[in-house]
């Protein structure tokens, strides 16, 4: 009996000795992206693709394209975890031959850093989302915030009508 207890205890010691919590795995929920859906301004219930959409942000004076000339009805874009503002250029009809129509959209928010685990450390969630649109000649008709709290990627946060 005693031997059994001792051996099972030693066994557990060796098993737990190799811990899996030293590696941050891909499946771990990370800082969420902002989910944007595009819908028709004529029929607000209908998803509507944006033709040749290019999504660009400027980081350290460098243009980064998250989407390049894609015809899609939804996008997922990251927000800056070091600032309460992220600017995006949403360019419609951007192809190799035409520049397209550029709308500048500014996302303002508050940030909270949330502990995940030992290996992954922290993630950021965003709250109190506010959106500003600067451009005059807009292809975007209206922007609606569906969820001003961005803590996961399960729901749509923003709907853009065009």
């Amino acid at each position, binding site marked *: 009996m005693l031997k059994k207890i001792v051996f099972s205890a030693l066994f557990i010691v060796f098993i737990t000795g190799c811990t899996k919590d030293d590696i941050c795995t891909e499946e771990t929920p990370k800082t969420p992206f902002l989910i944007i859906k595009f819908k028709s301004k004529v029929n607000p219930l209908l998803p509507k693709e944006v033709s040749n959409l290019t999504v660009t942000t400027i980081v350290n004076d460098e243009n980064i394209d998250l989407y390049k000339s894609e015809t899609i009805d939804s996008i997922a874009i990251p927000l*800056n975890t070091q600032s309460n503002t992220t600017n995006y250029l949403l360019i419609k009809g951007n192809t190799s031959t035409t520049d397209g129509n550029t709308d500048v959209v500014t996302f303002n928010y508050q940030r909270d850093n949330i502990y995940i685990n*030992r290996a992954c450390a922290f993630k950021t969630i965003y709250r109190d989302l506010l959106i500003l649109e600067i451009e005059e000649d807009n292809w975007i008709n209206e922007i609606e915030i569906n969820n001003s709290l961005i803590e996961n990627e399960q729901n749509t946060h923003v709907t853009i009508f065009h």
Partner: protein
Amino acid sequence: MNKILTSLFFIKVLLLSCYWGFAQEIERTINDTITKNNKYGLRVGADLARPAISLFDENFSGFEFMVDYRLTHRFYIAAEYGFDQDNQTESNLIASTKGSYFKIGGDFNAYNNWVGMNNAIYVGLRYGFSTFDQNLEEYTIYTGDSTFPGTMVIDPSTYKGLTAHWAEFIFGIKTEILTNLFLSINLQLKNKFSEDVPENFYNLYIPGFNKTNDYSDFGVGFGYGISYLIPIYKK
């Protein structure tokens, strides 16, 4: 004839070593004159592993005192008191823990000693309690994205007066290397059942419990102790 009797006795002792009670009975009936050879007393000591690790590992320093008192032939009450300081330098965060702990319980010696010897192969149980402070120094935001890669955030925060409770199973060996001086080595398996988890953080290390695990309440440890027996009476 005598020789045969003696060897028969040894064979019996070996065969019946699991049934220690029975074996002991034989011992007593045959050796009437040596019944007062078991020392009872208070054994005090310190853990050698923690100061040794403190020397080599700049991220750890600790010390532990240990004491046990022999109650019966096989049962001892035992307690440990210690303090730990541990820095956790993980790939994505830097934190530190500082605090003290107290463990109390008992040991059961499963080893049948030869006459006049005081060695032990023992199992023990402890209740462990720790009070400690945690410091979070800096951490990385996990974005999983190259547009805004995770950056180190230096945001020191202190969580004071945390406590944790755990149960512990110990398996160890004690050897008398000189009269009344013992060396011991043991393995500890711990299971925490209660702790103060800091808000928006976690107890990465608990003094006495050692490193925690994100996915279970188990902890492991070992000890390498030296102790001195203050004999009080013989039985």
